[in-house]
C-alpha cells in the first residue's frame, strides 16, 4: 500500500465531494457528531480502555501484551468513529442545520470548507489512533513504515494532537447553540 498521507488525502477529497453533493447544512450535522465522537474518544475512551482491558484479561487469567492493547485501542475507536459517521450519513439527521444553504459560488466554497473540515477530523482522528498506538495496521500488512517525510510532518497536525479533549465538548455546545439560534 502507498503512503498513509495518500489515504488521508483520499478521505479528505471524498468528504469534500460528499459535502458538495449533500449540501453543507447537512454536513454540519455530521460535524457535530464527529465532535461528540472525538470528545468521547479523547476524554474517556483512550485513557480508560486500557484499564478496562486489563480487568477483562485478568478475569480470564491472560496477560495483556502492549501490542494487543494497542490493537484493541486502535480498532475499537476506529470502528466507533466509523460507526458514528456512518450513522450520521445513513439517516441520523437530527443534528442537520435548518434553513437553505447558500447557492452558487459562495455555497460551493462553504461546502468545500465544511467537507474539508469533516475529512480532516475523520481522517485525522483515524490516523491519530494509529499514531498513538504505533501503527497496529503494520502487523496486518496494510501499511509499510517508516512514514514519508510528508507523512511525519502531517502527523504533527492531527486534530487530537493540537487541541485538548475539552475543546471538542465546547465545540459540541457551540454547534448546538448555532443550530437552535435561528
Amino acid at each position, binding site marked *: 500500500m502507498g503512503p498513509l498521507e495518500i489515504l488521508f488525502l483520499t478521505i479528505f477529497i471524498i468528504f469534500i465531494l460528499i459535502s458538495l453533493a449533500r*449540501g*453543507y*447544512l*447537512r454536513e*454540519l*450535522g455530521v*460535524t457535530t457528531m464527529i465532535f461528540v465522537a472525538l470528545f468521547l474518544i479523547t476524554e474517556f475512551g483512550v485513557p480508560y480502555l486500557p484499564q478496562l482491558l486489563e480487568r477483562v484479561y485478568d478475569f480470564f487469567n491472560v496477560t495483556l501484551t502492549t501490542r494487543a492493547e494497542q490493537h484493541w485501542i486502535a480498532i475499537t475507536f476506529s470502528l466507533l468513529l466509523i460507526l458514528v459517521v456512518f450513522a450520521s450519513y445513513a439517516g441520523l*439527521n437530527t443534528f*442537520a*442545520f*435548518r*434553513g*437553505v*444553504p*447558500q447557492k*452558487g*459560488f*459562495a455555497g460551493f*466554497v*462553504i461546502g468545500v*470548507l*465544511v467537507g*474539508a*473540515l469533516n475529512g480532516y477530523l475523520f481522517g485525522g482522528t483515524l490516523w491519530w489512533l494509529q499514531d498513538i498506538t504505533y501503527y497496529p495496521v503494520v502487523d496486518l500488512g496494510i501499511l509499510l513504515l517508516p512514514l514519508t517525510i510528508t507523512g511525519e510532518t502531517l502527523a504533527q*497536525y492531527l*486534530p487530537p*494532537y*493540537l*487541541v485538548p479533549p475539552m*475543546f471538542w465538548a465546547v*465545540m459540541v455546545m*457551540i*454547534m448546538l447553540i*448555532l*443550530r437552535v*439560534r*435561528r
Partner: protein
Amino acid sequence: MDETLLIILLLFILGIFSWFGYTRMFIGMLAQFSMLVMAALVGNPDWLGDNVISIINRMWMLFSMMLNGGFQIIAGGDFGQLNEIYAVAELQPPLILPQNRDIVLFIFMLLLIVGSFFVANKIMKKSSRLLGVFFGLVNGLMVIFMLLPVLGGGQGILPTLEPQTPLEGILGIFQMATKLLLVPVAIMFEVLGSWAIVVIILAIVILAASTARGGKRSAAAKASSSSSGNS
C-alpha cells in the same frame, strides 16, 4: 529581498487584486483575465512572442516596400518590379532587432497588462462579486507570475522562472497559488501555535452556520418531505 517580506508584499498585491475583483465583479474580471492570458502568451518568445515580432517586422518590411516605390509600381500596374523592391527591403535591418526582442516583448506585455485594467473598468457588469474576487486573485497571481522574474525576484517562490510551455506556466501559477495561500495558515500556526486549528475550525463552522438563509425546517426534513411528495 527577504523571502518573507516578498511573500507579504505579494499577499498585499493579491489583496488589492481581490478588492479590484470585488468592485469590478465577475464579468469585468473575466475580461481582464483574457487580456492577461494574451499578455502572458505575447510576453514569452517561445509562445506567441516570436510570432508577434515576426509579424511586426514583416509589416514594417511591407511598409518600407510601399514607401520605396511600391505604391508607384502598384499604381503603374508593373508588378514584375515588386520582386526587386522586395529584395532591397529584405536586405534592410528589421524594425525590431533580435537583441531588442526581449525588451519589446516586455513592453507589449506591460501594455496588455495595463490595458487589461481599462478593459475591466469598461466591461463592468452586474455579476457575482464572489466570483469577481476569485478571478481577481487568479489575475493577481498571473500578473505576479509574469512580472516577478522580470523584476529580478521569484527565486524560492516561483517553481520555475522560465516555463517552457504554457502548460508549465499554468502549473507554475497553481504551485505559486498553493504556496501563497498556505502562507497565511503557516503564519497563523507560527503566531497561535496549535490554537490556530481552533480558530480555523470555529471560523468554518460559524461561517457555514451563519450563511444558512431562512427556513424553519432542517435541510434533512425538507429532503425527506420532498422525496415522500415525489413518491
